[in-house]
């Protein structure tokens, strides 16, 4: 009987895992479905007549009717939604009026720029934010703790687009430390063939060191800006999580055992805070993906955020809804992955 216990435990763990993954997939499916419903509803309440947008306002009644039938707009709403859902699942969001390309192709060429920016931003935020949070927790109430609190508070209160403009003014226009808006200087355009779409990676792969450094001097400011907002969130959460761990009894035990303070903090306490911290980082990444809309506009960064706002200003609804759906899907997926990670990695939640 006793020999069976580990086996039983392993079986139960596997079951818990399967349940976790199952409920993750279910929630993901339902949430993505909800997202499609919302964009469908938005597409229907819009005051623009989609048929007129295609045929133009000089078309005859017969042409108008034919286009309406072709677009499936004469069918019941439920059927229209079914059609919309089918298309959305296969990535068919129609054509962009502005660029005349299929929306999905546009998204494919714009999205890597956003990913590059958000990834670098999260990296900066994590690498600085976690140590800051740890020090703030360890020296709780000290001057450093106060500074970390203020840094976080400012991050929560300052409009990101305004800070971006001020940073451009200072570091680009006045000090000339970094390159200006855009991803590259015009001279370097089209010198790198996109493979991954991530300029920093592609230029290095192709041995184009000048292009790489030019790209770095363009990305560093927007990435630092996003990194700051991610830092504000991550350092605050790290501090709270670690403070909680430091009150636990195992920390007292470790100290009584005579472990060095550094070992107690970094090896014991931080390790136990690592799982929720990971979910915090994933969440912050998702927020940056979404929040890059404003940053991209300020820095003329050719990412999905710029694409959506450009399309918005030109009433290009297919592009707006397609972009919203893709960003939304990425956001929702990351959000739920952070939930799943928490369940998988923390044995207490099984």
């Amino acid at each position, binding site marked *: 009987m006793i020999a069976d216990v580990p086996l039983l435990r392993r079986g139960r763990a596997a079951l818990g895992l399967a349940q976790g993954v199952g409920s993750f997939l279910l*929630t993901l499916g*339902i*949430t993505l479905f*909800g*997202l499609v419903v*919302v*964009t469908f509803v*938005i*597409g229907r*309440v*819009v*005051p623009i007549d989609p048929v007129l947008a295609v045929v133009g306002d000089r078309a005859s009644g017969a042409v108008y009717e034919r286009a309406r039938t072709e677009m499936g707009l004469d069918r019941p709403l439920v059927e229209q939604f079914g059609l919309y859902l089918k298309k959305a699942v296969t990535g068919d969001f129609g054509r962009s009026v502005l660029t005349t390309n299929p929306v999905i192709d546009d998204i494919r060429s714009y999205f890597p720029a956003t990913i590059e920016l958000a990834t670098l931003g999260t990296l900066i935020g994590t690498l600085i934010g976690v140590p800051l949070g740890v020090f703030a927790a360890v020296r709780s109430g000290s001057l450093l703790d106060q500074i970390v609190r203020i840094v976080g*508070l*400012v991050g*929560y*209160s*300052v*409009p*990101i*687009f*305004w*800070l971006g*403009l*001020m940073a*451009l*003014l200072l570091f680009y*226009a006045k000090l000339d430390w970094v390159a200006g808006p855009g991803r590259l200087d015009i001279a370097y355009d089209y010198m790198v063939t996109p493979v991954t779409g991530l300029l920093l990676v592609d230029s290095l792969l192709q041995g184009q060191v000048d292009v790489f450094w030019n790209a770095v001097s363009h990305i560093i400011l927007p990435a630092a800006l996003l990194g700051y907002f991610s830092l504000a969130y991550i350092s605050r959460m790290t501090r*709270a999580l670690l*403070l909680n761990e430091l009150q636990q009894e195992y920390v007292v035990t470790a100290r009584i055992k005579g472990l060095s303070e550094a070992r107690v903090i970094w090896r014991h306490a931080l390790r136990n805070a690592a799982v929720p911290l990971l979910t915090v980082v994933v969440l912050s990444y*998702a927020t940056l*993906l*979404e*929040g890059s*809309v*404003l940053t991209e*506009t300020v820095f003329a960064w050719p990412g999905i955020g710029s694409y*959506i*706002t450009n399309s*918005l*200003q030109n009433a290009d*609804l297919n592009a*707006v*809804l397609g972009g*919203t759906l893709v*960003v*939304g899907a990425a*956001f*929702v997926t990351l*959000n*739920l992955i952070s939930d799943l990670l928490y369940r998988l990695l923390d044995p207490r939640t099984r």
Partner: protein
Amino acid sequence: MAGASSLAAWLTTAEPQSRTQARLGHAWQSFRRLARNPTAIAGLAIVALLIFVAIFAPLLATHSPIASGDLRTERLLPPGPVFWLGTDDQARDIYSRLLYGSRLTLAVVILVSVIATPIGLAIGTISGYFGGWIDRVLMRITDIFLAFPRLVLALAFVAALGPGIENAIIAIAITAWPPYARLARAETLTIRNSDFIHAVRLQGGSSLRILVKHIVPLCLSSVTVRVTLDMAGIILTAAGLGFLGLGAQPPTPEWGTMIAQGRRFLMDQWWVAAVPGIAIFVVSLGFNLLGDGLRDALDPKAAR
């Protein structure tokens, strides 16, 4: 002096004579806790200043917020004795525009809370009180909205409804309610099986009466704290929509829109874009400080 101390005594008495006295006493205690926190008082002062400026904007303004000045001589002037914070490209006084802009900021914050809070409260309390499949369906919908990216969703809503401050408010409210619903549900779950709820039900109180008269009031304080903490986010989203040209439309002196207009002159007349940004920052900071303080004062459990 004697009057003040007897008032304090009346407020802090251990045996209140009426329900009003008890409530006032409770509020007084909360305020005392809040007042001990200097950053919370700073936040309160900023918010009070915002309200004051919004009310008295016509008296405090030195120029019209909308009408242009002399376009030949008064465009893009730096801050000076006549135009305290300089002028924009339409030769309008930035200081006066800023003052009137506070009305819009306040209106956005108030309207979004007035729309989103009741939705969240209703969905959360109904979900928690009735439980079962109602709870499951409502919470699933809440989760869907909670998982949505707020800014992008607000963008899409504005795309459909058309740009404008009213639609921006609706769009933000639609994306703001889910956390309130979650919170209200959690609070409802802890009180729905209390003796006093059973007592009301035995007296023949309807579910609606129990919800509105007994459960909602008990959820209000924690939801209020959460709403206050969200206000900075609401202001920033509204300003962001204005900056993208999707919120308030020119010549409305909305702060985000003002930054967008000043952006064209950033390199040489930087104050046109800088000043409204500082205003947004200070007001958001005020709401954040006040929200943190309120949380510590009203909800000691959540502190730390």
